[in-house]
């Protein structure tokens, strides 16, 4: 027996992972995938799933963790999309040769170059040809069921390949549907524990997978992989049939045909648009039109034989693509369908509709119109336009409010009411002025201020922001303008202490004379409050929830100040939005240091976040002030190696005064509060000791 619940697609995926008894789950947040791994965190926090949950500092590492865990013989799951998937790419390409049957959910989202949170397949299509199985789900039920099926397929000794489960962002990831949750016992019977054939475990195995072969064998091995892909087609069909017997639901293997009997023409769709396409076909059928629908379930391995069979039955095929392969003029599935059919003697006409890019909805009416077009091609035998882009006019948005005065940043923003980073950016730009270029990795601040700033605001890829910044700075340097323009990184803590650290470290060590400003809200806020390595001890976040087993983040925060000091850069300072004169002085100092070409200036400014720390918005500054007064956020600077504490209360207030204002600490026990107090005291003493040294000895 199974129970039913109403849930979003991301939760359905998480239930699938829980039921599959996955053993290792490396994670990194990205919208609209994040809630998958948050649900998994909750399951673990409350003892409903026993798995290693690893909060990585970026997707490149995250995929490395997944490959490593799978190599060691653990059933492994991860999830990502868009920029995250692209950032993983190198490791994604490595996984098949290691024969790691990882399942990775992709909650599809547009990949730059025009950013959008909405789904299209520009993220997953570039990953198609690496040797992964790639499956597209249409419904939330299918999401859950396919996690189970994909593990069974991927772990089959005839396959042993990683697989992607694509679910459309928003349309599935966040949309609620009724989903049956199968019984654990049935799932255990269907999906036995994973046994890696050659685990990298010297205690039980003498043989391990290798990624190195001499060039003459490459062609042979690639051919063998194609044979494995052919075997995978059979396994996919078998597993779907067995799943149907056990759970009473099956999906048709590589494709599903809907109302294709006696059809003159078919539409081909994938993912959630298929449901709208079913309704469009129903409507046309009701009018007596002989049109059917083919749902493309697996893009890899590609259902070549199935399409060749369909080609013998219809006169026209209309492929609906949510992606463009630039330089080919059309979409991805279109290219594959055409190439599958080309060697047939007798071929139907194949046309392509490119639509729904950037996450735009694909309405039933549009699909009806597409259906009519394909039918017309079928009946006339004439194809005038091979590819059609379905475009809609832009609804009118709000106009900016024009003000007399020119300001580097105008009033208003998209930030939450009371957002502390708004206070910080305004003071920063007030001092730096109009000749500033802000380089901004993805974060709350990009969403909040890019619309109201009057200075160039360059959205940079997350891990590469300090790279973008260095490039801009060096170009100005080369043109002799480096002392006239402030090139400034403005980044959250995630973009600084985690995924951005490598590029910042490189720039600091090379002595790039530019500023990096980290506004530290102590978590990944833009993706919905996941922990970063700057999240303080025991704080609850959505990836370190407080449950029956977990009690908030178990680790202390990273000491980024000393990391920067290890680079011997000329100026480092912490600051607070509650101490504005101190903050402004430090911004001036940082500007002066970078303008004189002395090297990097690094500012780390605490930013209380009402939304993520759970306090009322009017308390933003009050919370910041208490952080300084309790020693939770010491104000200090390191100038040419000389460390000075800028605010030294005679006696620090008890840390509890600071903690009790914030619901992220609501779950704390007395022991935990005492432990935090001990850590604060220890840190404070350490800073005092460093101050006493005069100059840090390694400078």
């Amino acid at each position: 027996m199974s129970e039913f619940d109403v849930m979003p697609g991301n939760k359905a995926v998480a239930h699938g992972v829980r039921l599959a008894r996955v053993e290792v789950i490396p994670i990194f947040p990205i919208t609209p995938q994040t809630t998958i791994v948050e649900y998994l965190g909750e399951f673990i926090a409350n003892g409903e799933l026993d798995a290693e949950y690893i909060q990585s500092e970026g997707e490149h590492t995250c995929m490395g963790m997944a490959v490593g865990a799978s190599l060691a013989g653990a059933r492994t799951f991860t999830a990502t999309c868009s920029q995250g998937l692209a950032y993983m790419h190198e490791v994604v390409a490595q996984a098949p040769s290691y024969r790691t049957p990882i399942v990775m959910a992709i909650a599809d989202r547009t990949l730059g170059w025009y950013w959008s949170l909405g789904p299209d397949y520009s993220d997953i299509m570039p990953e198609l040809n690496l040797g992964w199985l790639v499956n597209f789900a249409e419904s939330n039920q299918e999401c859950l069921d396919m996690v189970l099926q994909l593990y069974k397929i991927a772990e089959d000794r005839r396959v042993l390949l990683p697989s992607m489960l694509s679910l459309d962002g928003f349309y599935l990831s966040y949309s609620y549907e009724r989903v049956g949750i199968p019984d654990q016992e049935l799932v255990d019977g269907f999906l036995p524990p994973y046994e890696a054939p050659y685990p990298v475990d010297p205690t039980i195995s003498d043989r391990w997978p290798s990624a190195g072969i001499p060039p003459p064998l490459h062609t042979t091995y690639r051919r063998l992989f194609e044979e494995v892909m052919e075997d995978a087609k059979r396994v996919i069909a078998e597993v779907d049939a067995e799943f149907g017997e056990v759970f009473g639901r099956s999906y048709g293997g590589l494709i599903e045909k809907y109302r294709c009997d006696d059809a003159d023409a078919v539409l081909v769709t994938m993912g959630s648009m298929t449901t709208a396409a079913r309704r469009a076909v129903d409507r046309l059928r009701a009018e007596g039109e002989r049109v059917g629908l083919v749902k493309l379930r697996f893009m890899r391995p590609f259902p070549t034989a199935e399409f060749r069979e369909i080609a013998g039955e219809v006169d026209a095929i209309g492929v609906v693509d949510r992606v463009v392969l630039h330089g080919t003029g059309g979409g991805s599935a279109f290219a594959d369908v055409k190439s599958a059919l080309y060697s047939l003697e007798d071929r139907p006409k194949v046309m392509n509709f490119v639509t729904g890019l950037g996450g735009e909805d694909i309405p039933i009416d549009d699909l009806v119109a597409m259906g009519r077009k394909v039918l017309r091609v079928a009946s006339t035998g004439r194809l005038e336009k091979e590819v059609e882009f379905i475009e809609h006019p832009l609804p009118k948005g709000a106009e900016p409010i024009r003000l007399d005065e020119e300001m580097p940043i105008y009033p208003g923003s998209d930030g939450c009411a009371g957002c502390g980073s708004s206070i910080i950016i305004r003071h920063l730009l007030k001092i730096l002025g109009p000749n500033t270029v802000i380089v901004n990795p993805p974060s709350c601040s990009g969403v909040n201020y890019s619309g109201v700033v009057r200075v160039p605001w360059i959205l940079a890829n997350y891990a590469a922001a300090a790279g973008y910044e260095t490039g801009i700075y060096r170009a100005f340097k080369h043109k002799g303008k480096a002392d006239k323009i402030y090139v400034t990184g403005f980044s959250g803590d995630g973009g600084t202490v985690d995924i951005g650290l490598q590029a910042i470290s490189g720039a600091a060590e090379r002595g790039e004379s530019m500023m990096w400003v980290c506004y530290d809200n102590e978590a990944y806020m833009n993706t919905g409050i996941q922990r970063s390595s700057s999240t303080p001890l025991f704080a609850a976040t959505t990836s370190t929830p407080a449950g029956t087993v977990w009690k908030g983040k178990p680790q202390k925060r990273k000491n980024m100040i000393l990391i920067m000091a290890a680079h011997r850069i000329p100026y480092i300072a912490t600051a607070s939005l509650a101490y504005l004169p101190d903050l402004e002085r430090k911004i001036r100092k940082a500007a002066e240091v970078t303008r004189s070409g002395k090297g990097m200036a690094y500012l780390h400014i605490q930013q209380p976040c009402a939304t993520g720390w759970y306090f009322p918005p009017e308390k933003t500054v009050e919370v910041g002030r208490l952080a300084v007064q309790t020693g939770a956020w010491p104000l200090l600077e390191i100038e040419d190696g000389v460390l000075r504490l800028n605010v030294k209360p005679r006696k620090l207030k008890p840390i509890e005064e600071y903690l009790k204002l914030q619901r992220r600490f609501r779950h704390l026990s007395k022991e935990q509060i005492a432990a935090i107090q001990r850590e604060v005291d220890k840190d404070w003493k350490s800073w005092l000791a460093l101050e006493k040294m005069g100059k840090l000895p390694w400078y």
Partner: protein
Amino acid sequence: MVVVDRTKKGGQYVGNWRTYMPEVDYERCTACLLCAMYCPEAAITANEEGKPEVDLRFCKGCGVCANECPVKAIRMVKEE
């Protein structure tokens, strides 16, 4: 190319975010303008007397100004 034109930029209307509105008691106000310094939206400017004036088009009603006012001259009142 999609380009940003800084000469066409301006403030962002957020007045409809508000449920509470700041009300300044000008008798009490000492013109320290801490409220303006802390306002996350830069909605507060100084009037001719050097006292705060809230441009409600840009005010989200967060209450930071009222919370930070050292002489409690700003009150948050429910919007009509």
